[in-house]
């Protein structure tokens, strides 16, 4: 089904509300919607609700051969799925700009940040390692998918426990069931947190909104881009990646 276009009066009313210092759902400019996490019966399953946005992440693991270039490290693969459930205009199976963008965000936040200790996933060097597979499914798209997907995958990874493994002397690997031996939790050195802001430039003034809802996202794209901010909690430094052309009001809301 085609995407319902945003009408001109909706766009102008959202922008004029922002100029008057208000948001449509009565939040403050720097207020995030309510977040709730629900974990499933199986280890590694987490559903995140960020306002009305809902994302499901499921982590599974299997023992495979390691990459020849990195024989001591486990592997992680992340995949994002978008179906007509998330919004009627999506088509499952068709590659989509949004899917690519979300995949890029998650790979940068989880794989490139090296937040998960991949060496701890090694079973027998050069022969068997754990491969963790994270499947992120967007259930409902009500804005700010980047944050929700990140939250869901991080929570699912931290919830995931891998089965205990014994390596025999002759090199055979036995994977124990969850009943035989206690499963081992995954260790995350750092926790990637993703915060999304939308910028609106109205009358030469720049307004920054945190956690944009779906309509706010669509209007702000019309004007300009989103900033994605990524904080490494333990190390206390922040990394900005932005594409804004005008001078920016220094963000005062960032946690120290």
């Amino acid at each position, binding site marked *: 089904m085609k995407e319902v276009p945003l009408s001109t009066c909706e766009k102008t009313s959202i922008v004029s509300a922002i100029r008057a210092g208000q948001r449509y759902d009565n939040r403050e400019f720097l207020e995030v919607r309510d977040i709730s996490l629900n974990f499933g019966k199986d280890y590694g399953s987490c559903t995140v609700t960020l306002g009305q946005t809902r994302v499901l992440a*499921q982590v599974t693991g299997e023992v495979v051969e390691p990459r020849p270039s990195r024989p001591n490290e486990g592997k992680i693969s992340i995949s994002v799925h978008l*179906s007509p459930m998330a919004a009627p205009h999506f088509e499952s199976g068709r590659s989509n700009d949004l899917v690519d963008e979300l995949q890029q965000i998650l790979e940068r936040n989880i794989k490139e940040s090296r937040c998960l200790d991949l060496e701890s996933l090694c079973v027998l060097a050069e022969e068997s390692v754990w491969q963790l597979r994270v499947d992120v499914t967007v259930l409902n798209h009500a804005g700010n998918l980047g944050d929700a997907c990140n939250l869901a995958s991080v929570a699912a990874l931290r919830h995931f426990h891998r089965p205990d493994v014994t390596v025999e002397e002759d090199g055979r690997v036995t994977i124990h069931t969850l009943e035989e031996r206690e499963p081992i939790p995954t260790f995350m050195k750092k926790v990637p947190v993703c915060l999304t802001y939308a910028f609106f430039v109205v009358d030469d003034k720049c307004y920054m909104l945190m956690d944009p809802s779906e309509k706010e996202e669509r209007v702000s794209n019309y004007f300009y881009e989103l900033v994605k901010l990524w904080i490494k909690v333990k190390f206390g430094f922040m990394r900005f990646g932005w594409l804004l052309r005008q001078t920016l009001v220094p963000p005062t809301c960032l946690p120290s």
Partner: protein
Amino acid sequence: MSKHACELNFLSRSDGSALYSIGNTVALASVNGPGEVKKFNRLYNRAYLEVSYSPSTGQSMIGERALESVITRTVEQVILVHLHPRTAVNVTIQEMQSDGLELSTSVNAACLSLLDAGVQMKSTFAAVTCCLTPSSTILIEPTAAEMKESVAVATFVLDGQALNVLSAHQEGCLNAENFNACLKACQTAAKDVFNFYRQALEKKYHTCNEIS
């Protein structure tokens, strides 16, 4: 019989949605339509029905396609497709947690989400799964462990008015006598499922009335 639970209108972007669980198996169904359809799929006299089932991990493979075909066959018989020509009705089902009863949970979730969306149907429908143990006992809505030990597993989708069979799916060997016994057991259990649907919808409309 395992515990049934459901939450309606779970997703804000879908016309209708239902999060349904039977025991430890949970499925989320979302319905969009009747709405715009691609030229390729447009039918001059009826709505185009598309059902898709996604597992919680991994790619959709042949097992998921088999489930989709059972659900499509059921839903086709029930939705009044001829009232909506040149439109599409999209049913998407996501497996959230699985403990063996994927088919019946998905079918029931699909029915409730169609009711939530207000798509016109001839009757409601409900799926009941039962298995035949080696000692010839029939267990309704078994767990995955019980299904592993059983001789045959049968799922019947029954309609809400006369409890006729809309579709059936069976794994294992059942002779005619056992098949009929399973069918009878499922038909009795289905009455409880339909009562549960009624309660779920009463709750939904009761809340709506309270707000207004």
